[in-house]
């Protein structure tokens, strides 16, 4: 055994490490992810600006056209679209890819932390972020005169449903991040959003769509999500509109989470 020692170093006491537990692992991962968001504003600013811009431009360009085909309050009709634009595809997947590339992901894997918490913690941070992103959109809506038929509670439900949709969609970029470890692939994952966002009732009501677009919109979960959000704004608590919207979120979430957690299992399998 080597005998030389350093005099300056303080004595080191022994401590007993233990499993922190799932909840603590989850909050640790989520807190780290949330803390990083204001330190990299460039990653969030587009998600903030794009929905506001679309909302303003769509109203300016299409309001009179929409009113001509029977949409009474086009501003209320467009607000859910802006929310969907704000929350869809917003995730910490690019941070996850950075962790994989830098080796920090491996550092996490050599700790006893829960592997599920490693991903779910990021998703919890995403949920908090997307709900926060709904707020400025909602404020802009109020500024242009949009009102909720369901009142304050309806506005809260509106933000919650928007947040849950954002969460349901995050599984896709995480699945890509964990399968590929490639920043370019994760950056391209937003392309998944386009068919969801445009082949639906983003600009016109379902009754006004015809042909193939109407057929695709019928199967697009965002059609039902938008219907649920619009009913909160314009009609009241219409459960016949709300349930299909919640079911659409559940189905997309089940699919994307299955892909994401499957990819996580593959990434941490040690095989």
């Amino acid at each position, binding site marked *: *055994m*080597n*005998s*030389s*020692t*350093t005099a*300056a*170093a*303080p*004595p*080191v*006491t*022994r*401590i007993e*490490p*233990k*499993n*922190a*537990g799932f909840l*603590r*692992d989850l909050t*640790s991962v989520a807190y*780290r992810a949330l*803390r*990083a968001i204001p*330190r*990299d504003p460039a990653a969030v600013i587009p998600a903030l600006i794009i929905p506001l811009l679309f909302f303003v431009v769509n109203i300016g360009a299409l309001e009179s056209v929409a009113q001509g085909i029977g949409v009474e309050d086009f501003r209320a009709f467009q607000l859910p679209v802006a929310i969907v634009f704000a929350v869809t595809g917003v995730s910490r997947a690019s941070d996850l890819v950075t*962790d994989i590339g*830098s*080796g*920090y992901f*491996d*550092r*996490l*894997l*050599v*700790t*006893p*932390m829960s592997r599920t918490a490693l991903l779910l913690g990021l998703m919890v941070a995403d949920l908090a972020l997307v709900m926060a992103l709904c707020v400025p959109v909602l404020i802009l809506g109020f500024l242009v005169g949009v009102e909720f038929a369901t009142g304050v509670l309806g506005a809260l439900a509106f933000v919650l449903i928007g947040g849950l949709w954002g969460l349901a969609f995050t599984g896709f970029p995480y699945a890509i991040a964990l399968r590929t470890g490639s920043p370019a692939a994760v950056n391209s994952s937003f392309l998944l959003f386009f068919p969801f966002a445009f082949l639906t009732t983003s600009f016109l009501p379902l009754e006004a769509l015809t042909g193939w677009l109407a057929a695709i919109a019928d199967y697009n979960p965002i059609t039902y999500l938008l219907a649920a959000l619009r009913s909160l704004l314009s009609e009241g608590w219409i459960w016949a509109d709300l349930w299909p919207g919640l079911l659409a979120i559940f189905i997309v979430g089940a699919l994307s989470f299955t892909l994401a957690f499957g990819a996580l299992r593959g990434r941490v399998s*040690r*095989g």
Partner: protein
Amino acid sequence: MPSGETAISAEGVERRFGDLAAVDGVSLEVKTGEIYGFLGPNGAGKSTLTRVLCTLLKPSAGRGSVAGYDVESQPGEVRLRAGVALQEAALDDKQTGAEMLALQGRFYGLSAKATKARVDQLITLVDIGDALDRRIGTYSGGMKRRLDLALALVHDPQVLFLDEPTTGLDPVSRAKVWQEVRRLNDDLGMTVFLTTQYLEEADELADRVGIINQGKLVAEGTPTELKRLIGTDVVIVTVEGDPALARDALDLLPMVEHLEVNGPSLTLSVSDGPSAISPIAVALAQVAEIDVIELSLRRPSLDDVFLSVTGERIADSSAFMASASASRNPQEPK
């Protein structure tokens, strides 16, 4: 774990990637309180075996254990007891050093108070002053490496895996890491499994050294034992002309126990260096009739051991692997 018990064991560990056996049937045992130096060139299999032992990879065959727990069937127990600093400093540039240390403590179930106390102990090692509260993206390479080591120590592990801990460090930072490794070993009896391609690092720190080449453990022992393997002294001769002629002449000398030709240089293991110099010079001049450019005598190094067991020098081997790696992945960061 009491001193003398097995802290790390590998029994016929293999790890394959497709047809390539990165680790090919390695068996070794490290006692509690030992510093074990795992020496080999780039690509020899050091990091792969380390990743198997610290539960990042499953062995393709064989078994490994750390602190008495099987790495394949009890990875959670191993992770609680092992500290790991992998080859690249694995950090998050958006966090501060203090935040990363606190986060690491949380993953090992330490309370905020215990983590703070532990961080206070580790500050001496990190030695980055006020920078601990700055974001890691602003740190130098040496600061990152020291923080990486501190992260591996937050939970006071029984076994510490250090995968090339001083690669890329300046001499001062390297000395500091060596000092800390010795202190951890001396003060706490912490078992250290240290991979390195630096001969002097293994020589300086390790109680025992295992030499790995092309996935196989080719020699093992204390540095002194290993050096003894190749004779008491080493004579290096550089000749002008055909080194094969020199080899033929030197092979006839009874005191030459081992001889390697490396370009124009010949490395001879001899039992008594000072008395062998004269016969060697005479054999080259009169028997081989060859000009000697340089003739020197020195104690054997681990590099000589590596040359003896693999047929090449570790520095040449590392340079070759680095060059091969660079040509395969020209865009890959080092």
